[in-house]
Each structure stands twice: as C-alpha cells, then as structure tokens.
C-alpha cells in the first residue's frame, strides 16, 4: 500500500513538474514539441523516475504545452509550436476582428474538453487493438518498413520522400557501424539530430555567403500584441461557459474521431478535422470560433492517442507522435528498449497495466488543466508581452546549441556531437528541399534500427 501511495505521489509530482515546465515552454514560439518533449522525457526516464512518473511527466507536459501554445498564436500571430501552425489562420482572423481573447479562450477550453475525452477513448481503442498486438510485434520490422514508406508517401515530398528514405537510412546504418567501431552506441543523438535539424540547416545556410544574403533582413520583425480583455470574475472560468454546447459537442466528436486515427500526423488531422467541421457550419463567426475550438482540441487528442494507443497495445512506437516526441516512453536505452534481435520489449508497455494507463493518463490531464488553464486565462497578455520583449531568439538558439553539445558529449563524446551534426544537416536540408519531414526521418531511424537487420537476414538466408 505504501508503495502504491509513493508511486501515485511521484506520478503527481512529476506530472506537476512537466505541466509547469511545458506550460512555460509553450509560451515561447518555435519550440517544437519533439525538440523539447523528447529530451526532457528521456532525462526523467534515465534519472530513474518510476514508470508512472515518466508517463505523467510526458502527458501533462504535452497537454499543458498545447494549451499555452495558444498564447503566442492568438495574441502575437506566431505559431507557438508545430501543431499551432494549423490554427494560425483562424486565430489571425479573430485577432484582426479585435477579439483575440475569444480565440485564446476557445482554444484552451477546447483543449481541456478534448484532453479529458481522449484519455479513456485512447485506452478503449488500445484494448480493442491489443489482440492484434502479438502479430504486429512478430512482424515489427516489416510493420516499421511499411509505416515508414506510408508516412513518407503522405509527406509533402511524396515519391521524393519515399526514395530519399534509402540514402537516409543508409547514412544512419553507416554512422552506427562507424561508432560501433569505436565502441560507441548512440540512440538519443539521432533523435536530437532529427529534432534540431531545421536549426542546424539554418545555421549552416547562414555561414554560406549566397544563402546569407537571402536570409538578410533590413528591419526588426514587427509584432502587434493584441489588447488585454478580461470579462469574468475569479481565477478559474468554467470552460463550458466559454464554449457553447454546440462547440463542446463538435470538439468532443473531433477528439473522438482523431483519437482513433492514431497513425496520421497530428498537424494533418488538425487541418482535416477543422475542414470537415467548418463545412457543416454556415455562419462565418460561428464557423470560425467552432473550428478553432475543435482544432485545438484535436492537437490534444492526437497527442494523447498517438502516445497511449501504441504504448498500451503494442509497446512499439507505431505513430508519428510515438516515433517523435513520445519516443523516450518506448526507447530510452539502457532503461527502456525494444530489442529487435530477441523481440524483447521493455518499456512502459509492460511496466504499467491498462488500468494504470487510464488512471495516470487522467491524472496527467487533470494536473495539466489545473496548471495551464487558469494561467493562460489570467496571464496570457502579460506572458506574451514578456516573451516578445525579453526572450531574444538568440537566447533560444543558444539554449538549443547547448543542448546539442551536452547530449552529444554525454552519449558519445565527440562522436555523439558529430552524429547530431551529420543527421541534423542531412535531415534539415532534405526537409527544406524535398519535404522529407521530421516524422519521416524518425521512421527512417526505426527502419535502420529494426527493419534493416531483418532485411539483411532475409537476403542473407
């Protein structure tokens, strides 16, 4: 009994920590989910937090971040993170109508409603899929290969991305062989390299004279900060009063549907669900506000479902979120791992049971809502103003460069840093030139680690 109480308290504490940290990170625009969630969750796992605590840290962080990302999106017109790019157009319309506070409140209320719905639904879908788990585990290398090809085809690059998988996977295999020669085995470095790829590519471009001229700007960038309006009393406004019954219904439907479609990219689902809901509403203001509510709900439900369903049902990272931001829940060597040679899975999948996933999932969502919802409702304007005026982009870049160096040296010394640099440069330019995006790159990594040995075994036999 004491053990359980300790476990719950640790889970609560780490969930609270995740919610506070990522609520703050969400305010800073450009802080991609993968770049921030993956390394910090990895750290929590490696420091030996109990499995439930690792889960609550990640989930509460993701949910809180997708609430506070509404602040720069609604008030400054810059997307808070990758998922928020899908909300920018709607948010800008509302901002220019002079009601950015409405955009903000609808977004975070939609997020709260969707997050609460998504946890039990994800667990339900996972239970329904679990019987197929053994088959999928048995054919995991081929499932990953198929998933990589599918995700590549549906990326912006289409066939270019599919074909680019070959050299990309080859480079990863080659780098692994090289580091193995020096007795170094890397995993986190590949993830971090992929996650910071756009930054590394930008910095290299800046060093090349021609590209530098193209990146040159004459003026400071202009941001217009929307005015502050508070129209309720107290600290915790009721989300069901902020969004009307129809919006609640639409958000619930969107959250349910997007919980089931866990293999698609969250940004794509956010766009598509918004379009479907929008086409059913005639009046422009009603459409705008309902769509933005539901869309931010979808950014929550996809993240929750895409992390929980593969985790509960298979233990293999078989969704874009599971392969990217949630990767450490599956793979945080030496603590959590998926071993291809023996088919052994040792991660949250076997360390927590279904009821624990449900309970700790709901705990994370509730903690995140209690932290991020009232904070955003009450301090959005002050927070946006502080970030825009005080946090320079140089300092954000400096932090990430520090992260690259520390993680690289920590995992593999100088070799680690060089691998991050290589993968980052290659991934960054492939993404920029042919739309070979981060999701495809993560699947490329899994193909190299899981599918390639199987392919070699097959052709060698």
């Amino acid at each position, binding site marked *: 009994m004491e053990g359980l109480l300790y476990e719950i308290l640790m889970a609560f504490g780490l969930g609270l920590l995740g919610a506070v940290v990522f609520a703050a990170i969400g305010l800073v625009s450009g802080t991609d989910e993968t770049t921030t969630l993956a390394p910090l969750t990895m*750290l929590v796992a490696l420091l030996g937090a109990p499995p439930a605590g690792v889960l609550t840290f990640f989930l509460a962080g993701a949910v809180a971040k997708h609430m506070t990302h509404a602040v720069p999106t609604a008030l400054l017109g810059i997307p808070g993170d990758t998922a928020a790019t899908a909300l920018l157009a709607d948010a800008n319309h509302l901002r220019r109508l002079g009601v950015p506070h409405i955009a903000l409140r609808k977004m975070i209320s939609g997020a709260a409603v969707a997050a609460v719905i998504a946890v039990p639904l994800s667990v339900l879908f996972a239970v329904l899929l679990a019987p197929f788990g053994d088959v999928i585990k048995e054919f995991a290398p081929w499932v990953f290969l198929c998933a990589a090809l599918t995700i590549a085809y549906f990326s912006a690059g289409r066939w270019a991305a599919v074909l680019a998988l070959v050299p990309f996977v080859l480079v990863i295999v080659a780098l692994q062989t090289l580091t193995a020669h020096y007795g170094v085995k890397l995993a986190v470095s590949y993830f971090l390299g992929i996650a910071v790829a756009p930054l590394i590519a930008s910095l290299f471009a800046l060093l090349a004279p021609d590209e530098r001229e193209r990146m040159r*700007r004459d003026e*400071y*960038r202009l941001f217009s900060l*929307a005015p502050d309006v508070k129209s309720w009393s107290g600290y915790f406004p009721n989300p069901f009063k902020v969004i009307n019954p129809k919006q609640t219904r639409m958000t619930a439907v969107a959250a349910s549907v997007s919980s089931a479609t866990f293999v698609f990219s969250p940004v794509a689902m956010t766009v598509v669900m918004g379009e479907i809901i929008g086409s059913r509403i005639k009046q*422009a203001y009603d459409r705008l*506000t309902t769509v933005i509510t539901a869309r931010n709900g979808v950014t929550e439900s996809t993240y929750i479902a895409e992390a929980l369903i593969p985790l509960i049902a298979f233990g293999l990272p078989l969704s874009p979120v599971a392969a990217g931001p949630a990767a450490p829940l599956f793979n945080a060597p030496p603590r959590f791992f998926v071993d291809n040679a023996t088919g052994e899975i040792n991660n949250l999948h076997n360390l927590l049971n279904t009821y624990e996933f449900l309970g700790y999932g709901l705990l994370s969502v509730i903690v995140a809502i209690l932290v991020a919802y009232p904070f955003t409702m009450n301090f959005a304007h002050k927070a946006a103003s502080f970030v825009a005026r005080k946090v320079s*982009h140089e*300092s954000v870049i400096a932090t990430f460069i520090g992260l690259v*160096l520390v993680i690289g040296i920590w995992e593999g010394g100088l070799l680690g840093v060089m691998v991050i640099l290589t993968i980052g440069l290659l991934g960054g330019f492939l993404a920029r030139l042919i739309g070979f995006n981060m999701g495809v790159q993560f699947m490329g990594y899994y193909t190299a680690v899981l599918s390639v040995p199987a392919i070699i075994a097959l052709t060698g036999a």
Partner: protein
Amino acid sequence: MNQSLAKPLGAPTPPATTDGRTPNLYEVWGDTVAGRDLMLSILLGGAVSLGTFGLAHVALHQVVESVQMAKAYSMLVGILGCLAGGVASAWLFKPKRLVLEQVVDPAFRQQVVAELLKEYGSLGRLEELSPHVVAELHELGLYELFREAQAQEALVREADAEPDRHLPMNASLVGGRS
C-alpha cells in the same frame, strides 16, 4: 515557420540600434537575429553548458557511487547549464522585435469579413444561429458588422442573379457562363 503577419497600424520604425551602427539582421529558424549577437550567444551557450556539464561530470563521479547515476545527474546539471546559457544571452542580447500594442481598427474588421466571405463563399445567416452565439456577438459588438455584411452579400447576390447577359466577365460571382 515563415508566415506573413498582419500589418500593424502606424509606420514601422527602423531598428533601434544603441550604438548607431546598423546590425546585420538575418532571419534564422523563424525569427530575426543579429549576426554578431547570434555568434556570441552560441559561443556563450556552448561554453556555459559544456562547462557546467564538465564540472558536474568530474565532481559527481567522485561523489556518487553508481557510475550510471553520476552520468544521468551530470546530464541534468548540463541541461540546467544550457538554460543558464540561454538566460545569460537573453540578458545580454535584446530581442530583435518591435512589439506594438494593437488597437482595433474598424477598417480591419471590414477587411476580415471580406476575406471570410471569399474563403467560405458565403457568410451564412445570423438568423440561423443559436442564442448563445447571438449573445456572444452582441457582447463583442460584432453583431452589427456581420448583419451589415450579410445584407451587403444578399444585395450583391440579387444583382448578380438578374438575367443580364451583357455583364462583364468578372461579374461571375454565382457562376455565369463559363
């Protein structure tokens, strides 16, 4: 990450340089930075984070028993070092942004309504809204805006629907002959 922003009100002011020189401004990773500041920030961030990580690594391996834990904790300290490097450069180098407190302009609102009409094809009818949404529109002072726009749209539609076959080519809001 590049997106065009709504033009704010008032003329944009030139970059405020403290020392009179024009800084080399570049757009990197979605926002504007000054070349020199970026270089110094990266050096500072790298030095502070690696420095703290290195110190923690040496110190912790002597204090903590388990090598595994010492390694994990030195990473934690290293990540705090990254943050410290970031805070230091935020303190040294100011953002290259101009932040204007926005005031709502009625002309802006008209423009948004026109854009919505173009995007959605129709603004729909206020009469079909639920009382919740109507109350919200009244509260925000947007009801009249949409009512007028709706009346305007109906007028245009009526004018177009008239069987005038000599209309110019561009007056094909409701299809026409193509």
